[in-house]
């Protein structure tokens, strides 16, 4: 039987560059590998990997496996699973880390079921049990109303990790690592899906994930207009971005790309201003990493006041414009 050793990150590229989730996974994997006294490796599979392999080393990888193929350009589960399955079978890592991203959500279950091993998705904390060398996998459950710690004694242990749950290491270009290009055959006939077209839904302004300030609206906002008016004006005043909880996205008031929550984007701004958001656990899951949360809601009993540090009880239609005006004055001083 093969010996399972080391930690492997299945990395992701965005526009040819190492994605932020990948450096976070490397940051989360490094202490686990150190504790095991084993290697931290990273798989990068795309049409062209370029400098991303060096980046992965700078962010903590000891070894990078590069697989390049034109069919890996756009993510398709049936293509990437071939790479993931073959490499993980060959490398036999103890732990496989993936992002809780649209790619990781799609790929990790395929891999776990192919390998016949367990998978915990959407983990927010990992620790190593020093006695068993098994991972304690902490993940929110019941929409964030509770947390579970899972373990599995079947190797490899596979987990996906929530965005912003782990911190990347300081980028260090002097770090040494090895880049290898294993030959992996990709069978085009095993790709049973066909991407016909891609439609981008433009969200103007600062990207939500990068915004230091987010003004977010919920069901209580009542319609699409305020997202373009009152909420946007407050966000613009603070050089921030506008987001939303799930109901506005489901109702089509805002594009899905603005949805913050368990099944939307995960954000961690300096300031999160929740406007007419009740504060369901599923929404808090997407913004609980915010440094300061401010809540504006007419319902004093709303759960959001249990999460926020500052709050105003009142109709947002009156509170938000007054807040914006006063901030404009104060910031101009």
């Amino acid at each position, binding site marked *: 039987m093969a010996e399972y050793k080391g930690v492997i990150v299945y990395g992701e590229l965005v526009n040819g560059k190492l994605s932020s989730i990948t450096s976070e996974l490397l940051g989360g994997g490094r202490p686990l590998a150190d504790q095991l006294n084993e290697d931290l490796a990273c798989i990068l599979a795309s049409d062209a990997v370029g400098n991303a392999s060096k980046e992965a080393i700078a962010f903590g990888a000891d070894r990078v496996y590069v697989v390049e193929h034109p069919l890996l350009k756009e993510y398709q589960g049936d293509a990437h699973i071939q790479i993931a399955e073959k490499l993980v079978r060959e490398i036999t890592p103890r732990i496989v880390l993936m992002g809780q991203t649209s790619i990781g959500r799609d790929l990790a279950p395929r891999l776990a079921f192919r390998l016949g091993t367990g998978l915990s998705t959407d983990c927010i904390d990992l620790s190593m049990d020093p006695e068993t060398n098994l991972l304690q996998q902490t993940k929110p459950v019941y929409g964030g109303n*509770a947390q579970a710690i899972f373990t599995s004694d079947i190797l490899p242990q596979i987990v996906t990790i929530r965005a912003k749950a782990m911190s990347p290491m300081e980028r260090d270009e002097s770090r040494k690592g090895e880049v290898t290009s294993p030959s992996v055959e990709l069978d085009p006939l095993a790709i049973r899906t066909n991407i016909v077209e891609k439609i981008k839904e433009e969200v103007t302004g600062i990207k939500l994930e990068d915004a230091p300030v987010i003004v977010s609206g919920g069901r209580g906002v009542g319609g699409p207009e305020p997202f373009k008016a009152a909420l946007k004006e407050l966000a613009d005043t603070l050089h921030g971005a506008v987001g939303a909880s799930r109901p506005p996205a489901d109702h089509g008031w805002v594009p899905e790309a603005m949805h913050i929550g368990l099944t939307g984007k995960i954000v961690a701004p300096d300031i999160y201003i929740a406007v007419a958001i009740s504060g369901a656990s599923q929404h808090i899951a997407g913004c609980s990493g915010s440094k300061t949360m401010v809540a504006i809601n007419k319902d004093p009993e709303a759960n959001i006041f249990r999460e926020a540090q500052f709050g105003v009880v009142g109709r947002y239609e009156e509170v938000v414009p007054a807040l914006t005006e006063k901030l404009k004055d104060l910031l101009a001083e």
Partner: protein
Amino acid sequence: MPDIHTIVCCKQVPDPEAPPSVFKVDTAANKLTLPPDMKPVVGQYDEFAMEAALKVKDSAGGKITVLSLGNNIVRDVIKKTLAVGGDELILLEDEAFEEGDSWSTAYALAMAIKKIGEYDLIFCGRESSDWDAGQVGLGIAEILGIPAVTLARKVEVTDGKARIEQVIPDGYQVIEVNLPAVVTVTSELGSLRYAALKGIMVAAKKQPTVWKPADIGLDPSQVGAAGRLLKLARLFQPVKEPKCEIIEGESPAEAGANLAIRLRQAKIL
């Protein structure tokens, strides 16, 4: 093309929209305790999956089989899927099915689907509303050896193919896949339609088919808690002290202005 047979996997769960305060954990038993009068619901993403199946039936005809796994499945609750237009209901219901993980659940569902035999599309919610794992749909596809498309916001069937709008981070993409296939559905597909009175009456008369592990060729040791791969080491609720400073004012507008002053004072803005 002949009528489309879709299978929808639906799970009975504690109402995820219930206020957070009702969710309590018995840490000794590693179990959720809920108020006894709290009625379970069909998982919210499973409802979107049901709606996806109904939309396919609206346009392409055919029949819908609803499949649910668990124990003590409340008939009134799961029959909602029949009242809105599901044709048949199969329950994998037994004590042995309790407390499974994604692995044992997907395995039992896949064996049931094999027993059903003929199918074109299998719809699952993107994730359950209790353990939030998001694995079962993909697991069924792997076990059955058929393709899977995740996070669908629209599904149409033509000429033996499904055309699926899949949500991606900056928009969506259109994917074509040959049938049979598994499709997992996300909230943007749209809420489940309301049941008409006629549908409710038809559903009331229908009796679900109940299958035990042996009916799908499985030993009780292969399902539920006995068949799981992940061990639940601990279930808990992190202690959280609410500490919200409520900013007052003579009017909401004044409170808004006072909030600006307070945030500035605290050097937050």
